[in-house]
């Protein structure tokens, strides 16, 4: 997951672009908007929208999400229905075709690949989003509390994070799945257990810089309780960085789930996910049924690609250095 936290990459190109647009940016504001203050969110949205690649990717990602939610309305078959007319003759008859209703072809067992890709997208994407939501929530709270209270508690809480983060979590996750049964729920739980650690560090770092600001001091002076300060004043100010970091983590979760399902240790039949579908497709490509690999692989790759640029766009949009 650390791999997804990238420092600048193409950001620099975008930096240059931002500089070029800088005058234009002020110009646009000049007469009317001058009086209106703009919130962080409006500001971020304007900056995000200026990044064309990120906007296109967001659009594509929304399409993929819509596909995964409503795609099965158009499926002619269910995910486990075996088309007996095709079974055993996948190469000759199971190719993608609108006439048979198998838009993406069938898999080796004569099941409709379109329905399975819809289902796989649903599971893979929900692993990504739910993982991000849980880890964001837990990590932010943990980091904010640790950073705000400081002192011994902070030392202890951060040493715990140091220790846990050093554990090769994929191994423990697989042990977890073997012991408690392979199911998508267990993957959620397993990923949630380990994913908040990085977020906790990020949130703590940001809290440390926030907690000496005047508005926190003002809150302390009028006697607001520590807990309320953390919830009302620290956490909302962490949101920018938390959103950026969270969006960078999503592909990591999707990859982790796909990795496990690829090995056959994740989702169980008849359910499926991108990893499991890619694994099946890779297993059967020697027979010449390329579509079984091509469709799940394209969905996976395009989604990863989109998350890459969305994360990048979000970071630029929220990066205070640019302002």
């Amino acid at each position, binding site marked *: 997951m650390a791999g997804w936290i990238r420092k600048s990459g*193409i950001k620099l190109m975008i930096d240059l672009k931002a500089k070029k647009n800088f005058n234009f940016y002020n110009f646009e504001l000049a007469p009317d908007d001058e009086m209106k203050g703009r919130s962080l969110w409006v500001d971020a949205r304007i900056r995000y929208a200026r990044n064309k690649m990120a906007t296109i990717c967001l659009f594509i990602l929304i399409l993929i999400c819509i596909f995964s939610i409503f795609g099965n309305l158009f499926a002619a078959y269910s995910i486990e229905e075996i088309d007996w007319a095709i079974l055993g003759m996948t190469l000759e008859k199971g190719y993608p075709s609108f006439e048979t209703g198998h838009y993406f072809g069938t898999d080796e067992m004569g099941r409709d690949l379109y329905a399975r890709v819809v289902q796989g997208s649903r599971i893979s994407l929900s692993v990504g989003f739910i993982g991000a939501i849980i880890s964001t929530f837990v990590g932010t709270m943990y980091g904010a509390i640790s950073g705000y209270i400081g002192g011994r508690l902070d030392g202890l809480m951060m040493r715990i994070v140091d220790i846990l983060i050093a554990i090769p979590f994929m191994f423990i996750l697989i*042990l977890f799945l073997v*012991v408690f049964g392979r199911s998508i729920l267990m993957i959620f739980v397993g990923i949630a257990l380990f994913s908040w650690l990085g977020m906790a560090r990020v949130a703590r770092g940001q809290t440390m810089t926030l907690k000496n600001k005047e508005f926190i001091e003002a809150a302390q002076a009028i006697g607001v309780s520590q807990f309320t300060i953390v919830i009302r004043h620290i956490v909302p100010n962490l949101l920018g960085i938390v959103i950026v970091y969270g969006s960078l983590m999503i592909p990591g979760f999707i990859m982790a789930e796909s990795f496990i399902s690829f090995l056959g*240790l994740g989702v169980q039949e008849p359910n499926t996910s991108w990893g499991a579908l890619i694994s099946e497709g890779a297993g059967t*490509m020697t027979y010449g049924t390329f579509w079984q690999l091509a469709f799940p692989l394209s969905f996976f*790759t395009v989604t990863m690609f989109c998350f890459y640029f969305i994360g990048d766009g979000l970071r630029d949009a929220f990066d205070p250095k640019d302002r």
Partner: protein
Amino acid sequence: MLNLIVRRVAIAIPTLLIILVISFLLMHAAPGGPFTSEKPLSPQVLANIEAKYGLDQPIHKQMFNYTVGILTEFDFGPSFKYKDRTVNEIIAQGFPVTMTYGVWSFIIAVFFGVPLGLIAALRQNTRTDYFAVSFSIAASVLPNFVMAPLLILVFTLWLGLLPGGGWNDGSWQNLVLPVIALSTSYTAELTRLTRASLLEVLRSNYIRTARAKGLPELKVILRHALKPAMLPVITYLGPMFVGLITGSFIIDSIFSTGGMGYFFVNSALNRDYSVMLGITLLVGGLVVLFNLIVDLAYGWLDPQIRY
């Protein structure tokens, strides 16, 4: 320096202990012992077998014996599924294989990724730079389980150049595809990291000073820019090592190379707990050791780090 070592070891030991305790407890929480099979054994036989493997003792004693066995004799105990094999034999068979392509991938990722990133940063906004950036974006969306089937598809099925699997005592033909599949995304990550970090360093004030006092560009880079630019790259080597080891599962399962990943996944599917436990601990130990080395290298390179 000594202080740094002590501090790092102080983190490493509890990490290992936690890995041991979590995996040990998880294994024993599992429903159904390792000897539950379709044909029920008579209680007496079961009791005898359990006594043989020490499973009749209380759990803390089992854990203690297990740890002592590993520490004193490097003995990970017998396999629960294959009665004639010990975990040590399985590790001895799989470990060299994993290490071979793991080390090659590591070397290739570092020796391609870092120079490519350096060149890209030094020639920012040229064609070389755009190539490096597009390579790193493209490769980062192609993890090993995507790369491996694609490589087999192209190089084995279409071009027929290289074998799509097998180990063959580690001959180079069998190594090429696994190593490419395993190293590509890490090469890309290293390229991106190196590029970004060198660019940041090159914009800093002390580099401007070095240039202003008239040092030739090459000297500025070699003497002033390179070392600090390498710091984030060094930190990334730790996670990369973990990634290579876990990635080897995919390599083993696609290319049938017969490394540790093969045994780990197999034992996970067969509930062969002792093999899983042994491999997890071995990998955990390696990861902790490697992170320790990375941390020490970091502390040695970065004069700002003083514990």
